[in-house]
């Protein structure tokens, strides 16, 4: 179709679909009213049954743990997929982009940026670990904490230390960490199968509500997920960054 025809056809169809959606959503209870049994029941029983004060985490990693396993593997599949799609093709070599830069002076990163970035690295990593570990108590969990950890790697790049990043990120270790995180979830599930009779059964001691080590398997799962997400996003980051490798004259990355 020609672009103009396409736009007109689309707008007409979208108007109809929009009308249908609005009409259909009128059948929902108004926003702010929630009557459904699922959430209400869980809000009541999750804390006493699972000794986890973060009910969302209890839902994500225990009641609906198999969904989260699938979700973790979606991330895993996407990282593997990106690695496949961005693999080096025949005849493609990592060349010094100075040929592309063509005489333009690539400024190095300023010292202030570098210092600030590296100074923030420690607290961010610590914060990430905190979010992962306390997922069953306070807002957070493996996914959120894992992403925070991955931004530590991004910070290293932004503060101009891409070369350091490559040295610190030996491909195999991060790959293995990601695979370990993903595999650990399944292993915990199998452990539940063996120890409790159903896959992903929460077979570890539940401990006292409010303590760091409590809520049974939710904490180990959080750690596994955090590891996988952090490693996965670092891999994604480096795959994309390698596509745009710009090494300045001094061997440091440029903006």
């Amino acid at each position, binding site marked *: 179709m020609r672009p103009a025809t396409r736009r007109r056809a689309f707008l007409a*169809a979208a108007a109809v679909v929009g009308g249908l*959606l609005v009409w259909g959503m009128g059948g929902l209870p108004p926003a702010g009213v929630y009557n*459904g049994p699922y959430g209400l029941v869980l809000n009541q029983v999750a804390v006493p049954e699972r000794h986890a004060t973060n009910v969302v985490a209890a839902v994500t990693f225990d009641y609906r743990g198999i969904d989260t396993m699938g979700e973790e593997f979606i991330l895993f599949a996407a990282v593997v997929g990106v690695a496949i799609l961005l693999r080096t093709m025949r005849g493609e070599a990592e060349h010094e982009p100075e040929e592309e830069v063509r005489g333009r002076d690539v400024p190095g990163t300023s010292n202030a940026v570098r210092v600030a970035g590296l100074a923030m690295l420690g607290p961010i990593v610590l914060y990430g670990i905190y979010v992962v570990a306390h997922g069953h108590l306070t807002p957070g969990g493996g996914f959120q904490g894992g992403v925070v950890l991955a931004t530590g790697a991004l910070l290293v790049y932004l503060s101009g230390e891409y070369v350091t990043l490559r040295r610190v990120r030996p491909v195999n270790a991060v790959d293995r960490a990601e695979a370990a995180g993903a595999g650990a979830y399944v292993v915990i599930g199998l452990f539940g199968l063996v120890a409790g009779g159903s896959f992903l059964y929460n077979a570890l001691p539940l401990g006292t509500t409010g303590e760091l080590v409590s809520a049974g398997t939710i904490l180990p799962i959080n750690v596994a997920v955090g590891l996988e997400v952090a490693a996965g996003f670092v891999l994604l980051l480096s795959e994309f960054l390698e596509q745009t490798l710009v090494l300045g004259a001094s061997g440091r990355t440029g903006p």
Partner: protein
Amino acid sequence: MPALAALPVAVPLLVAAALVGAGTLLRRRVADIVAIVTAATVTGFGAALLARTLHGEAVVWFGGWTPRSGIALGVAFAIDPIGAGMVTLAGLLMTSALTFSWRYFETVGTLFHSLMLLLLAAVAGFCSSGDLFNMFVFFELMSVAAYALAGYKIEDLGSLQGALNFAVTNSIGAMMVLSGTALLYGRTGALNLAQIGVSLASAPSDRLVVVAFLLLLVGFFVKAAVVPFHFWLADAYAVAPTPVCVLLAGLLSELGVYAVARVYWTVFSGPLEQHAAPLHALLFAGATLTALVGGVMCTLQHHLARLMAYATVSHVGLTLLGIAVLEPEGLAGAALYAAADGLVKAALFVLVGILAHRFGTLYELELRGRGRELRWAAPLLVLGALGLAGAPPFGTFVGKALIEEGAHGAAHWVAALITVVSAMTAGAVLRVTGRVFGGWGPRSLGGRDVASAEEAHRQAAEEGEELRAPRSLVGPSMIAPVLVLLGASVAIGLVPGLSDRTVVVAARFVDRAGYAATVLGVPRAAPPVTAPVPHGGRLVAAAPWAAAAVALAFAGAWAALFANQLPRTIRRRVRRIVVPAARGLRGLHSGQLGDSVTWVMIGTAGIGVLLAATLR
């Protein structure tokens, strides 16, 4: 039982993670063997599940969260023979695909095997799940793995385009599925299929039910490539590497139809049963359109993989026809047809892959006459064509017979449609066989319609698609999968009494109250659905139609190959009708991303208006 239900999902996931973790430590052959063994194991699990569930669904609650007074707290797998059959089919297809890739890929990292196993795990989970959001999660896992695998050949620009179109269009479909799920959750406060069904059944259909049904239907139709949501399929399936196509064409498209059936009968049959007539008509129309458009486009193709891709579209239409009758016989027929047809299509894709591997090209004209050195492939292609046409003893014959029987009043129209469409797809394959192996048919195709194919041919040559050097000879690891797949399809057709037993299974599938009782552990709300009385006449009644399909297929192939021998006036008259129509139809299938998405929106609008007008 809990172990058996979870393992088809857990084992491939674990092995996939392990393969990536081991990475470069593993030699390629080791990875191949590990992957093949895993896929075979999943096939075994599926078969065991099939045996276990023949007399009742297997319900497994993850994490030990059993429902309380009808409220599901956890996620359940509710496996019935149809779901277990699809798991077995997936395992078999994956084992064949991985065996084929032993030789097909010169070098491939473990990442390929990992993605394939992830795909397998996702399919197993999707077919076993009894929870709507859980189905969505496995649906997305399946899709993400498929997008990456479709774009595997990154040197081909066509691959990247096809994968992009595939990914964007299917993502929009997935969003619609999720939105429909959210709407149902807002109304019923449940995500478990049985629980939603129980909750909806207590009230008549209203606007929310209609729109939720629309969204779920359209989302799954995009995956299944029902017209007009099919524009992404040919571009994606034609460029994916052959082992991937085996799965995409053999199974993934039918899963969309399976999902529609599952969701309809467990969730929507309560409020929508009274409106069966308009729903029946709508599904019927969609199935017919898909089957015809797919069939015609199939005959117009001269690129073998695209030809098979359109054959997939048209046969999805035929499968949907079985669902459209909204009866157990039709459903049973659709299930058998999907399984047997998936196996045949997979075998044909493998044969196409062998041709590509040996000759480096998939354009019919280029391959003309060159098939002589692979003589043994010709009878296999003919067998595949017979399977597509639905000839006995293939399982497709039994499936077709059941679908035709299920149509009751409209049986003759349905039979005629199935005959014509399967003749079109089978005829296209026969034409290809004749041209490639017999060297028959015109050397070049005159007429403006196919000059575009030659021009595209030149364009593809410039883009480097033809630069693959012919490889070494075809090995047994490439031939064995074809034999196994064709054999399995025939085996389905030869099992005595299979059609009757499948009808009994289907009667349980459509029994919403029974499903809810089994899954939620509550007493039945309505009397059980009695299975229709079996009678053996269906196969006999279907035989003449099958014979007609085979005859038409051969006639069509002959006409295509030897058209030049027909009198000139007939040729000119036919050309005057066919060429503009063909050009118009081809023009619609431009392969542009914006077009496929626009058609999705147009289709949603159209179906939505029809549903809104009739389903309340």
